[in-house]
């Protein structure tokens, strides 16, 4: 009798090259995405040690963090950003690594480009020097973010030194209500288990509500797994996965496809597999979420209010909530719907795919009005050149532009503001990104995390509104 295994255990066991006595494994890595921010020191390290890149064919480079979202043909005006992007270009060219350069029509955010090109496949180990690599777990893969020393380790050895994680299953029963998306679900999960709730675990999302999600929804969910503290999030392979992969540019074709398919179908937890922790969520009870503080766990529903720190009994949390409200410029007990906004950001590796843009454009179109007068800037930044082109074929760009939104080129943009797109001190933003940390979208900027539909509605109304009640 073979012991039933979880999906994570299958992925882990099939990649262990060597095991040390203390449980540290040499883990084989199948796919390595490289960006311009976390890779230059790693390539330099490999060079200085006189080593070679082990398997250039496993690597894929994409510049995304620093790239401008306008006027790209003129190049990058910030010399430090330009040097980083050029350094990635040189490192990829000299090592013969596939790269989607800034002016390639397929360029975009690495966690959008990889999946849409068919470079992230079930059964793989996928790493990248970026914490949101957890996104790719949506394909039944083991995908997690690493630091620069580990990027160098993978470049030089095709492996990582890792310890096996504990396993957590998040079982989501029921059906997500209309107006609630994977973003609302994952924010609700983080609100429930906290930003350290998943520390030390690999999380598998399962249950009817997960099976009902599209691949894009699953990517949103896995993407924000790191915000719950877990390095890796994953969803088992099913028909939805297979249908999405079919005919993507780098997916195997013909006989290779059939052979791969048979293996990919096994990328799910066995019946009777045991998890170290199981958490159950009722999808039917999820409501549109809005974060109010400076940590993704500081989140409530659209019908909620900013909490009163004095009601908090834990001294650490009381202190954190007080500090967060001060930073956010919010008074306790303010209804979420009364919070006025300055800027809107629709984009990021969490929510910049075509379904996200359709959802946001749908709301704008339904409301049929322009941006509220208090909105100084509303950015729509597609996740890739291909997403942008698809949206334009569907006329979504016109809907956004007619309402007063700006329609930009693909990149990380105002999710982390390494390029020119940022909040000024004190500005308040409804953002479809993943982190509301102090200064994340610009020094002194105030971020409220929401779904694309919620961000779009807030842009037109000037404050948060319940999208379930739009006429």
């Amino acid at each position, binding site marked *: 009798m073979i012991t039933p295994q979880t999906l994570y255990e299958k992925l882990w066991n099939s990649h262990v*090259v060597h095991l*040390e*006595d*203390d*449980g*540290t494994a*040499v883990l*084989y890595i199948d796919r390595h995405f490289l960006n311009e*921010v*976390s890779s230059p*020191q790693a390539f330099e390290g490999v060079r200085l040690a006189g*080593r070679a890149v*082990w*398997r250039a*064919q496993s690597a*894929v480079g994409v510049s995304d963090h*620093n790239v401008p979202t306008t006027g790209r043909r003129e190049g990058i005006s910030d010399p*430090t950003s330009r*040097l*980083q992007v050029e350094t990635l270009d040189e490192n990829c060219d000299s090592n013969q690594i*596939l*790269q*989607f350069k800034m002016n*390639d029509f397929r360029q975009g955010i690495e966690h959008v480009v990889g999946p849409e090109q068919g470079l992230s496949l079930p059964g793989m180990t996928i790493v990248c*020097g970026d*914490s949101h690599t957890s996104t790719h777990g949506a394909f039944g893969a083991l995908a997690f*973010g*690493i*630091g*620069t*020393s*580990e990027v160098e*380790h993978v470049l*030089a*050895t*095709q*492996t990582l*030194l890792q310890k096996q994680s504990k396993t957590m299953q998040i079982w989501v029963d029921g059906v997500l209500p209309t107006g609630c998306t994977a973003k609302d679900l994952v924010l609700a999960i983080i609100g429930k288990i906290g*930003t*350290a709730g998943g*520390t*030390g675990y690999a999380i598998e999302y399962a249950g009817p509500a997960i099976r009902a999600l599209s691949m894009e929804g699953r990517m949103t969910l896995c993407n924000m797994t790191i915000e719950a*503290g877990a390095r890796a999030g994953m969803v088992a392979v099913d028909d939805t996965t297979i249908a999405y992969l079919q005919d993507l540019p*780098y997916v195997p074709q013909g006989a*290779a496809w059939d*052979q*791969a398919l048979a*293996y990919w179908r096994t990328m799910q937890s066995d019946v009777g597999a045991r998890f170290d922790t199981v958490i159950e969520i009722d999808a039917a009870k999820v409501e549109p979420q809005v974060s109010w503080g400076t*940590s993704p766990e500081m989140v409530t529903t659209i019908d909620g209010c900013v909490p009163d720190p004095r009601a908090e009994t834990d001294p*650490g949390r009381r202190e954190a909530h007080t*500090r967060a409200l001060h930073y956010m410029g919010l008074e306790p007990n303010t209804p979420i719907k009364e919070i006025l906004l300055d800027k809107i950001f629709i984009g990021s590796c969490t929510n910049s795919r075509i379904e996200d843009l359709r959802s946001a454009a749908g709301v704008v179109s339904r409301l049929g009005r322009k941006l509220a007068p208090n909105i100084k800037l509303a950015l729509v930044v597609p996740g890739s050149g291909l997403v942008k082109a698809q949206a334009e074929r569907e006329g979504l760009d016109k809907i956004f532009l007619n309402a007063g939104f700006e329609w930009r080129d693909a990149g990380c943009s105002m999710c*982390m*503001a*390494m390029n020119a797109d940022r909040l000024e*001190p004190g500005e308040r933003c409804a953002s479809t990104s993943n*982190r509301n*940390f*102090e200064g*994340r979208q610009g*020094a002194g900027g105030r971020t409220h995390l929401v779904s694309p539909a919620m961000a779009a509605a807030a842009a037109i109304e000037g404050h948060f509104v319940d999208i379930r009640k739009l006429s």
Partner: protein
Amino acid sequence: MDKFVVHTGMVMPLDRENVDTDAIIPKQFLKSIKRTGFGDNLFDEWRYLDHGEPGQDCATRPINPDFVLNQPRYRGASVLLARKNFGCGSSREHAPWALQQYGFRAVIAPSFADIFFNNCYKNGFLPIVLTEQQVDHLFNETLAFNGYQVTIDLEAQVVRTPDAREYAFEISGFRKYCMINGYDDIGLTLAHADKIKAFEAERLTKQPWLNHRLVG
């Protein structure tokens, strides 16, 4: 990598939970293609009153006197004392680089975020997990006594306090071995190069689609 065997140093308390890596080193400093030069921008937004950009002379910037790092009594501190979930958020290794380049050799907290925790070991910078009670005691002592120091003995896996307490901490055998000897992980892994090659050859035979040539 610097060896870490025994370290005695002054403790600086940072009394906040969930300190994220965006706070440890803000994104504008990540544009560097070097591994050094991050110490002056550690906790930049909390530490200075103006807006920080790469290339500034930090010695002439207005400092925030309320931030603990700027208090004269903690000048020269080399052990950071923190609260739970320290280092959450982005995977940027610039965070442990900045802490180390400022002069810290170790950080003690009740819990750490996984990626940050892992990144520390790659740089000879030691993250130590103690219990909430032990961390509370250290906070109280640090505030009570000017120049409060602890000794971290990695060989014995203990933190020794001036009031003769010994707090044991866990570390995996492999990590301890690398830290004490200052070994580079990559060199150690490449000792298994033959095993990696054999594993890879078998994998690419059984799953030939992984060997698909990537062409632009």
